[in-house]
Structures are given as structure tokens and as C-alpha cells.
């Protein structure tokens, strides 16, 4: 009797929740700073995919095309339209702090993705740690090369935070080992530049063991340069980001030895949004865990990085 009562209670609760779920629907405004980069296209795709299983969610996407003021206008439009939640991946911290604060003060929960805003006026920040990923790449190189060797580093852009962190993290990871970075150059995240810089590295040094590029297209460009010189078998290529159509594909094809994921947080943003909608408390800061892919583990979906 008690058992059937409790089952009945559970069923009642369930149907009630379902009913509520059907009745209530939410609109999420997603403001992306720039869709020119594949990684950001992937972020939007992850948000879309995360929301797919929930018919009660509608996501409105806006692309600010790398323009702070346009992104500011998008946030203001979302507030005026009365969306239930805003996900924003801001272009720059300072110019977008005020619009994010305005939305937050208007009672709209704001999830900040990947890049930060200043102060505390947002609901939740979700991001990955470039420095940790760079350090993990460094430690992986030390193990892989047996503690000594010559490395060329193709840097993203040293005036950007991801570039600085991927650089300093990597240096931390190889500290104390016999790994020497004998060539470094800015390739501005672009494959043709990486290829050009790598050609110079190849012309100058005959004893490169590994190329560490700050993103996977950079590693691929370096590989193309080495292949043109007939030296692609003499060295390893690693990079960061591990998008399915870039880094993961290159690892699968044997072009890159490893790719380290820089997660977009798109799926986690939707999960967090749902918890906010259901009245749960969410933590202010979420650091995403990251995976790495090598030839050995790629078919199993990569391995989690440990700190």
C-alpha cells in the first residue's frame, strides 16, 4: 500500500513537471563576438546541439562580426526583447562589461563564455584555461621526447591572451627538462603564415624534433612545409583546439602526433541555463575540463587531461 502510494506520488510529480515543462518555454539570446573562426562556429554548433533535446528552449543567435559596439547593441536588443537568459562570448572585456551589467541588473541571467568581462555583475563564467592546456602540452612533449630535444614554437599572436597563455603554459610544462625551444615565430593563428615561418625554421635548423603550434591549422601549415622539404617524418607536430574537422582529423590521418582540446563550453552553457531556469543555484566560475587526442586514443574519443 505504501509502495503504491509512493509510486503514485512519483508519477504525479513527474506528470506535473512534464506539464510545467510543456507549458513553460524559454528564449535564450546567444551573442557571439565573431563567427570568422572555426572554433567559434563550433561553439555556436555546440550551443545549438545542446539545446536540441529541449523543445522548450529557443536560442536566438547573433554574430557581432568582431565589433564591440555591434555586440553591445545585440545585448541591448536582447534586453529589450525580454529574453529569459543571455549567453555572451564577449569580444573584449572593458567595452562589454557595462552592457552585460545592464542586462544582469535588469534581472536577466547572463552566462559569460570563454572570454571574461570585468567585475562581478554576471551570473556565471564558463571557460577553459589556456595556461593549463599549454602546460599539459609541454609535459606531454617532455614524456614523448624522453626529456630532451629541439622544438619550434609557432605562436598564435603574442598580443592576445590565448597566445600569451599557451606560450607561458608550455614553457612551464617543459621547465627543468632538456627540451629547448630553438625557433619561435608569430603566425597570427593563420595556416599560410605558419607554413612560411616553418620554412624559415627548416632552412635554419636541421635537428628539429617537434613543432608546437598554438592552434591546429598552424601545426598543419608546419607539416605542409616539412613535407615539401621531405622532412615531415623527422619530427612530430602538435597543436591546440582539437576541433573535429581540424585537429582530430589531422591526428586521425597521422599528420599530427597530438591535439589538445580547447573546449567551447557551448554544451555546458545550455546545461547551466537549464539549471538556472529550474531555480537551481549555479557556481559563479566554471573551468572546463579538456581532453587530448593521439593516434592511440582518438577512436575512444580522447583522454581527459590531468593536472
Amino acid at each position: 500500500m505504501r509502495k503504491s502510494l509512493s509510486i503514485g506520488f512519483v508519477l504525479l510529480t513527474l506528470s506535473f513537471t512534464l506539464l510545467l515543462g510543456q507549458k513553460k518555454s524559454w528564449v535564450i539570446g546567444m551573442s557571439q563576438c565573431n563567427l570568422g573562426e572555426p572554433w567559434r562556429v563550433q561553439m555556436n554548433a555546440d550551443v545549438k546541439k545542446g539545446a536540441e533535446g529541449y523543445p522548450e528552449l529557443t536560442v536566438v543567435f547573433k554574430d557581432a562580426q568582431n565589433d564591440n559596439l555591434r555586440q553591445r547593441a545585440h545585448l541591448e536588443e536582447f534586453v529589450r526583447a525580454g529574453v529569459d537568459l543571455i549567453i555572451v562570448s564577449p569580444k573584449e572585456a572593458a567595452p562589454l562589461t557595462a552592457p552585460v551589467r545592464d542586462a544582469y541588473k535588469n534581472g536577466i541571467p547572463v552566462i559569460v563564455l570563454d572570454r571574461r568581462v570585468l567585475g562581478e555583475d554576471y551570473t556565471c563564467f564558463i571557460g577553459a584555461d589556456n595556461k593549463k592546456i599549454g602546460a599539459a602540452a609541454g609535459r606531454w612533449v617532455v614524456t614523448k621526447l624522453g626529456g630532451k630535444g629541439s622544438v619550434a614554437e609557432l605562436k598564435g599572436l603574442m598580443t592576445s591572451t590565448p597566445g600569451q597563455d599557451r606560450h607561458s603554459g608550455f614553457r612551464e610544462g617543459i621547465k627543468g627538462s632538456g627540451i629547448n625551444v630553438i625557433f619561435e615565430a608569430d603566425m597570427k593563428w593563420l595556416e599560410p603564415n605558419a607554413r612560411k615561418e616553418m620554412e624559415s625554421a627548416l632552412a635554419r635548423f636541421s635537428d628539429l624534433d617537434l613543432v608546437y603550434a598554438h592552434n591546429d591549422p598552424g601545426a598543419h601549415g608546419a607539416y605542409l612545409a616539412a613535407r615539401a622539404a621531405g622532412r615531415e617524418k623527422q619530427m612530430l607536430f602538435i597543436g591546440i583546439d582539437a576541433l573535429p574537422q581540424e585537429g582530430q582529423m589531422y591526428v586521425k590521418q597521422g599528420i599530427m602526433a597530438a591535439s589538445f582540446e580547447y573546449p567551447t563550453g557551448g554544451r555546458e552553457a545550455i546545461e547551466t541555463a537549464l539549471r538556472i531556469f529550474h531555480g537551481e543555484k549555479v557556481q559563479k566560475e566554471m573551468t572546463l575540463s579538456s581532453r587530448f587526442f593521439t593516434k592511440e586514443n582518438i577512436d575512444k574519443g580522447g583522454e581527459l587531461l590531468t593536472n
Partner: protein
Amino acid sequence: MAPSLRYFLQSPTTRAGLSLILVLLVGVVFNAGGSFFEWGTHRDMLRQISVYGILACGMSLVVISGGIDLAVGSVMALGAVVFSLLTIHLQWNGLLAAGVTVAVGSACGVLVGWVIARFKVQPFIATLAMMVFARGAAKLISGGEKISTAVQTADGSYEYASVPSSFQFLDARVLGGNVAVVTLVLIVCVILCWLFLSQTVWGRRFYAIGGNEEAAWYSGVPVNRMKILSYTLSGLFCAVAGMCQAGQEVQGDPETGVGYELTAIAMVVIGGTTLRGGRGTMGLTVLGILIIGSLEKILSINAVGEETRLVLTGIIIVAAVLFQGTRS
């Protein structure tokens, strides 16, 4: 000084040649442990500037006939995307795909040339519009993503297509591995432009309308048609450059070629062709291509930081132009 020697020293070709020698001397001093003296370094430089050089060929024609084409980088991206879509996704024959790509690039040129000639829109404005339009078209047909050998299927997973033979051909090297195919493409483009400008009546008409449009019109030159022709040829070379870019990147990137128009213009101008039109030769453009290419290579093999590179490049461009133009 003998008049013939003075004439020789004052000719733009001599000056551009001297600029190139100066740049090369810098390379001899800063030779990065001897790598400047290896042929491989220069072969790679020639590969790397080929795409820019092909754009500069079309740009020379437009500039000589008194115009300017800001759309070359975008139209090139459109070419790269179209070529990749046709060869990788639709698996067309490379030659057929190349034909369609060239037609698309030329069509962009016809359109912008027609707007300039028919409605008397300033070339700067009209090609600026085409620059935005072609970039948008490239993103539109590629869905905003790079067209690579990773082909997305309906369920969101990726299948991996093989690299088309046309891509492998474009990224190969010939003549005992000493010359990249894209460099040969550049050389062919240069020769075609040189023949066009110096040996045909159309070439002479380009100089005529660039020098004095009104005078050319009174002497019976079909000004509008010549203008359209110049932008059409520029669009055609953009498409060729786009295919070379796609072949080397093993993908068609709708974001490729941003800022390439400025490099192409710099190559034309550094050679000594004036932006006022009516003057200049392909030889000068070739020298301009080599000056910029060598300069970049020297900075690169010495691993000079990006900040310093930009500062130095700015100074050297101004210096070269002053050296060119003071007593023209």
C-alpha cells in the same frame, strides 16, 4: 655624367632593381647562419609570394588603366571556396572545376567593371562594394566554414574525403623539386600580362585611358569596354590565385586573403608603377614582387618579432617609394 648613364640611373626599372639589390644585401648581412645563401630559402620565398604575385598581375592591369581593385582578396577567397566545393565535395574533374572558378572570378570583374564604366562610380567605391560582396558570397556558399577534406554528413559526424589530384598538382614542385607549381603559374601570368600590355592594341589602350581618359575617348578608344576588360582580367587572375591558395592550404577557406589587396597594391607601387595610371610595366611589378617577398623572407629567417616586422616593413615601403618617385 654621360646623358645615357643618367638616363639609365633615372629609369624606374633601374631604381626598382637597385632597391631589390639593397634588400638582398640586407639578407647577405643578416643571413641567419647561412640559410639566406641556400636555394631552398629562395624557392620557398617564391612559392610563398606566388599567390600575392598573381593578384599583383591583375592589379597592374587595373592600375595602369587608371583604376584600383580592392576586391582581389575577397574574389580570391570566393575562387578558393568554389574550386574546393567543386573538387572536394562534388568531385568534379580539376580542369572543369578550374574553368568554372575562372568564370566566377571573371564574372565578378565584369560586374564591378560594368558598374564603374556604366554608372561612373569611383573604382575605389565600386571595388570596395565588391570586396564586401564577394566575401559574403564566399561565406554564403561555404556555410561559413572551411571547405576541407573533412566533409560533414547529415548526422553531424565527419567523413574524410581524399585530397583531389588538382590540389596535389598545385602544391607540388617540378624541375627536380626546384620550383613550386604555383611559382610557374605566377610566371605564366606575368608573361601573359607582359604580352598583353606590350604587344596588343588593348594593352596600348589601357595605357591611353590611364594616361588621359578624355583624350583616349576623343581618339576613338572604347573607354568603357576597356575598363570592363581590365577588371574582368583582374577577376580572372583572382580566381587563379584562389585555386593556388586552396591547393596549398588543402582547403577552401572563405576567410582567406584578408588584406591581400594591400600587399598586391604595395607590390605594384613599390615597383614604380604610379597609382595615377598610364605608366608602368610588368617588369616593374615583378621587381616589386621580389622586393616584398625577399624582405619578408629575410625578416622571417631571422625570426624577427611581429611588432618589429610591421614597423620595419612600414619604413621600408616608404623608403622604397621615395627612392622611386622623387625625380620621375
